[in-house]
């Protein structure tokens, strides 16, 4: 009767039979990419913890935990922090599974070239997630293989140092860049096009991410070397001529995109846009999230940046009150507008994971930091001219040009989850937030953000500390 009891799952695979065939390995890899859809951090929490946390936007909406992010009062029990931590580590598990299993596949259908690519894609994904974590929390547990035991000694992994995490990211990305193609081809060698090349990690994506990693560590020359590889990639990354096309929902997988989260609508839809878009588009009458700040709108206006303001922000009269824009119903308030389609919680709109415009500005920044302000200006003005802004001319000090470049990044990349990292990179987070004047109309007083060095990092989630006594909390 042991046969009677020896049942196998009908609707699930098991670790014994799930990774044997080439197609199963592809499926495990697809599952690893899916974290970009299922982890809320990559849907819209990256905007909350960058733009809302910084000077770009207010929380909007009605969620106390998003208010915490806005007002720099994130506590260790903030459930969004824990959710993001958990979902990103789940993405790391999926990547680790692919990295471990792909070498064991004996199916002749899986060529050595494809094996290498699969490994490269998974290494890239792992690096992407660790880069996210190290920026949010500092040093985190560095887990490089799937967990197979539940023994406390095996699962209670302490934090690695920030440097160790970055070292692993650099190693993974360097390996990935070597294993990955510039673009993917079918069996006849034909380019599969943007819908594949912007969905899968490529050598260009690995080098671009490497550039961002080096830049965040102020290793400017390494960053420049990586950027050079991106520029030389046969994928042919270029700035789109028209900034509007980046965010009009009509030019997905364009030439400026290096990697973007793929959404097709309906069951492969993005719920994020419905949270942000105004009543005229979403059909909702409830208060929306991520309201652009007075300070951001003022920055667009001061620069005369009509083009990018128009592509990024939409003003609309609303029935609710807003504590920063109008304390009476019927005020016109701004909405985050880089996504333009709500589509009933299942939008086709996408977040860029890496886009070339960011890399161009990063190059300007690195050139300036390495004393090459002339060439820096060339890069900067590529971005400015596209935005119909007059070119910045020479003669600025390094500091003044740095500020100019950071402002450019702010206006170019608003609502794309970059602002906080930019402030932290140049140690400007404390001063910027404490100097910020945002009037809460309910009290008539400026908000006291009370920013400190410690708040540059998010706390380690309390729920994780409860599960793993080997962890130490960040200074709060």
């Amino acid at each position, binding site marked *: *009767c*042991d046969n*009677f*009891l020896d*049942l*196998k*799952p*009908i609707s*699930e*695979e*098991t*670790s014994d039979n799930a990774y044997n065939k080439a197609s*199963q390995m592809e*499926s495990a890899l*697809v*599952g690893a990419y*899916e974290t970009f859809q*299922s982890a809320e951090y990559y849907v819209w929490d990256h905007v909350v913890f960058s733009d809302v946390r910084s000077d770009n936007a207010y929380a909007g909406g*009605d*969620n*106390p935990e998003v*208010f915490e992010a806005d007002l720099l009062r994130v506590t*260790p029990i903030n459930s969004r922090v824990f959710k993001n*931590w958990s979902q990103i*580590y*789940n*993405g790391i598990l999926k990547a*680790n599974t692919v990295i471990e299993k792909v070498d064991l596949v004996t199916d002749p259908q899986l060529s050595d070239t494809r094996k290498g690519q699969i490994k490269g894609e998974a290494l890239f994904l792992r690096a992407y997630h660790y880069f996210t974590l190290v920026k949010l929390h500092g040093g*985190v547990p560095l*887990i490089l293989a*799937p*967990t197979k035991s*539940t023994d*406390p000694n095996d*699962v209670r*992994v302490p934090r690695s140092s920030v440097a160790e995490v970055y070292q692993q990211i650099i190693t993974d990305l360097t390996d990935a860049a070597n294993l990955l193609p510039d673009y993917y081809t079918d069996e006849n060698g034909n380019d*599969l096009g943007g*819908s*594949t090349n912007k*969905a899968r990690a490529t050598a260009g994506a690995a080098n671009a991410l490497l550039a961002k990693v080096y830049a965040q560590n102020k290793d400017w020359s390494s960053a420049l070397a990586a950027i050079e590889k991106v520029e030389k990639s046969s994928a042919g990354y270029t700035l789109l001529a028209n900034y509007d096309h980046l965010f009009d929902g009509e030019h997905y997988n364009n030439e400026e995109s290096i990697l973007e989260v793929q*959404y097709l*609508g*309906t*069951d492969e839809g993005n719920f994020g846009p*419905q949270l942000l878009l105004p009543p005229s588009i*979403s*059909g909702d*009458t409830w*208060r929306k999230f991520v309201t652009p700040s007075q300070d951001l709108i003022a920055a667009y206006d001061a620069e005369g940046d009509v083009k990018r303001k128009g592509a990024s922000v939409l003003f609309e009269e609303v029935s609710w*009150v807003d504590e920063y824009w109008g*304390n009476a119903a019927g005020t016109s308030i701004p909405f985050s507008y880089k996504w333009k389609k709500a589509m*009933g*919680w*299942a939008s086709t709109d996408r977040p860029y994971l890496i886009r070339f415009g960011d890399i161009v500005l990063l190059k300007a920044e690195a050139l300036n930091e390495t004393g090459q302000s002339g060439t820096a200006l060339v890069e900067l003005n590529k971005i400015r001219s596209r935005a119909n802004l007059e070119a910045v001319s020479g003669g600025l000090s390094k500091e003044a040009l740095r500020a100019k470049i950071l402002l450019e990044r702010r206006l170019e990349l608003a609502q794309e989850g970059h602002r906080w990292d930019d402030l932290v990179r140049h140690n400007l987070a404390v001063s910027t937030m404490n100097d910020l004047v945002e009037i809460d*109309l*309910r009290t008539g007083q400026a908000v006291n953000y009370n920013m400190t060095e410690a708040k540059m990092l998010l706390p380690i989630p*309390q729920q994780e500390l*409860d599960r*793993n006594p080997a962890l130490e909390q960040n200074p*709060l």
Partner: protein
Amino acid sequence: SAEVSAQNTIKGSVTDQDGEGIPGVTIQIKNTVTGTTTDFSGEYRLTTKSEEDILLFSYIGMITEEVPVGGRSVINITLKEDMIRLDELVVIGYGTQNKKDVTGSVSVVGSEDMESRPNTQVGSLIQGKVAGVQVQSSSGKPSQGISMRIRGTNSINAGSEPLYVVDGVPTADTRSLSPSDIESVSVLKDASAAAIYGAQGANGVVLITTKKGTSTKPSVSLDVYGGVNEVWRTQEVLNGEQYRDLMTEMGYNTDWDQYQNNTDWQNEVFQTGYTQNYQLAISGKSDNTNYYISGGFTGSQGAVRSAEMNRANFKVNLDQEVNDWLKLGTRVSYVDYNDVDVKDNQAVNQGGVLLGALTTPPVIGIYNQDGTFTSNPFQDWENPLASTDGSTRGFNNKRFLGNLYAEVTILKDFKFKTNLGIDNNADKYNYFLDPYRTSYGRALNGQSIVSQNNNTYYIFDNTLQYNKEVNNHKIQVLAGSVIQKYHWQSSNIERRNFASDAISTPNGGSEIAAATATEAEKANTSFIGRLNYAFNNKYLITANVRVDGSSVFGPQNRWGVFPSFSAGWRISEEAFLKSVDVISDLKLRAGYGIVGNDNIGTYAYMGKVGTGANYPIGGITLPGSYPASIENQKLKWEESEQTNIGIDLGLMQDRIELTADAYIKRTSDLLLNAPLPRSTGYDNAIQNIGALENRGIEFNLNTVNYDKAIKWTSNFNISFNKNEVINLVGQEIYTGSIAGRGEAIQIKEGQSLGAIYGYEFLGVDPRTGNAYYMGGDGNSTFNPTPEDRKVIGNANPDFIYGFTNTVSWKNFTLNIFFQGAQGNDMLNATRIDTEGMTDAKNQSSAVLNRWKRPGDQTDIPKSSPGNTDNSRISTRFVEDASYLRLKALTVSYTLPQNVTEKLSMSAARFYVTGENLWTLTNYTGFDPEVNQGGNSNTVLGIDYGTYPQTRSIIVGANITF
């Protein structure tokens, strides 16, 4: 030979004390299989072989008589009614036993208990009737099933509900049973009683036996009742002007002229519900056939708008004695069950109806001019009628439950029984949200969901029984095997984007949002053995063993062996007590046993790889997989080790009956879904970790207080249980999330399950109006850290009790049933939402006392928009939820026999019942008898806008023809 010559035909009649012939009396020659039964008029005829033969006359409810033949050819006998209830047969696992021989802890609820309280489900009828059994209905919804805990919660993640066995077929959901069909319920509480069910018996076993025919004359019985129900308490909330003041103070301004309504949302949401029930049964028996056929309908509309439940039931029970060695029988029931659920346990933001009724401001009406539902003036939280009326939500379950058995008397003393039981049920949920009236419906352009489950189950058991009585030795041996198999199939489809509301099925929508179907299986194989031995009716021993195999565990740990042993000593049979008239029965019982639990997910030991992590690449969606669980070949049976000692005492011809039991249950190798650090990528893994203990004492007292023209009987039962987590290998587990405030339940070694966890609220600072709390250093603080949280309440009652009094006089009977729980705390999380003042929700009147200006002395902090610091989970919201309630009061009148005879009825009874007429509690919420966590093992004692128990009045009749 002498024997042949002694062959003799005996005839006679068997009558009752009134001289009426009794049909169906069994007459058997002692120690043989030869026998017969009396005919319709009570006459019998039987051939004996020897003058030494002894005839046994037996009939249920009568005292068995032994009569030596002694050469007579006519033997007339009068059987006496069995007044001593000790000779009652008690249904136990795979058989019955005389109550006096029972050595385990078994409680019985008989049909008379059922009749005194009309109810739509059997679970409710056990509440308060059995010591050691905590029956909880986690809400008052008509569709709410019950959660039963026999001697406490035994597990953390594995199921803690007892096994229900209906006429030999295990089942999980008892909502589909009609109480009218039930003859008796046996609750097997300790390991020695439950061990025959081994793996499935860890949480106790509830054996439900349905009715059989009892008289030769076909009996037709009709049960009818109808009634009304409503919530017994409402909450006071802010009126329009007070709401406007609060909003203005919080900085929310609007054009208030648009909001001039005065809607009482509780009045809109609560309604007078009704219940109706009709059951018709025909039963009877002839020489060799016994039948019971019933059909009925129950309909119930809830006290909260749109909640309802309907059930149609049909049942056939049939037993046929084919010849003197073969008996066949079947039990078949078919039930069609429908309900409409309302969303509770949620904030208005998530569509919770109860919290919606409290936190929707009165200033808005129900509908906008365009027919859409109104929303809060400041945020698009729709009014609660959008939840009750905005969608159609129909659940239907069709269930076929039945068995077929054959009983063969092989040799003298041996009986073989084979039984095949099945439970096939299919349920279907239809949901439709039109594209117009609700905000979510408009965003999706309409949504239609159909989910279906098809579940099949069979059990095949074969048992051989040996019964032997030699001199003073009585031996009963049972051996057998059981196999069980479950198969689950479920599918779900969802479409969106509808052209109109004219089509409500998914085909009307253009976008497929979900389309999936899955299957799973589970199998169990078991071998059982039992020995009952009695010597001299004084010394009783029961030993059980069950060997269980389960597909849930890996090959190395698939099998578990679960033995038990119990003994009884009937001291009252000893010479030194036989002469003491006042003691009619005294028995000591002691038992020890181990039972197992495998109530966890299927294929639990395997490293499962899930599907559905799909992602578009190249413009099409590719299939994606993900690691779903960690393989664990070491996973094995959770074991509960139980020790029970008990005493049964009957005094004054059993006018006073006392049963007392004390027990310790220790569950080890707990099947715990232990949290893992999320850095592993997993949330948790099922492991055999830790231990849990329940210990307690329970008393049951039945008394006949007065037995003259007026008869007054009482039952009182009380149970004390203490639950403790013994070992969790140092882990702490947090659960029971409250929106925006973290988790409210801590599971930790040394504490009981249901420890409410949070901050200690110290008061409101008169200067700033902010709440201050106890900090870890013993000083008060406005900003406590998570480490400053501690246990601030215990959801477990110190004791639970039930008290029933029945007084009959002439044809009137009065039944009063009180039931209560003492010493349990509740986190009134509803108040976090209604007193928190963090957003634009309407609040309870309590906030009129909020801090407004420096110097105010109050215990309600100031309003704090967008900030939860003043409304953390704290002692401020923990309340004593002890209660005593008049659960049921029934007055009934039975028509005198001369009247019923004229009407050609055999009996007619009319009654009025009031349920929950009176409640004594300090709890301030809607009702103390609720739980957000439903039947969860760990989320206990939280009320978060939970549907309350209702008060009802029912009028009914039982008529028999």
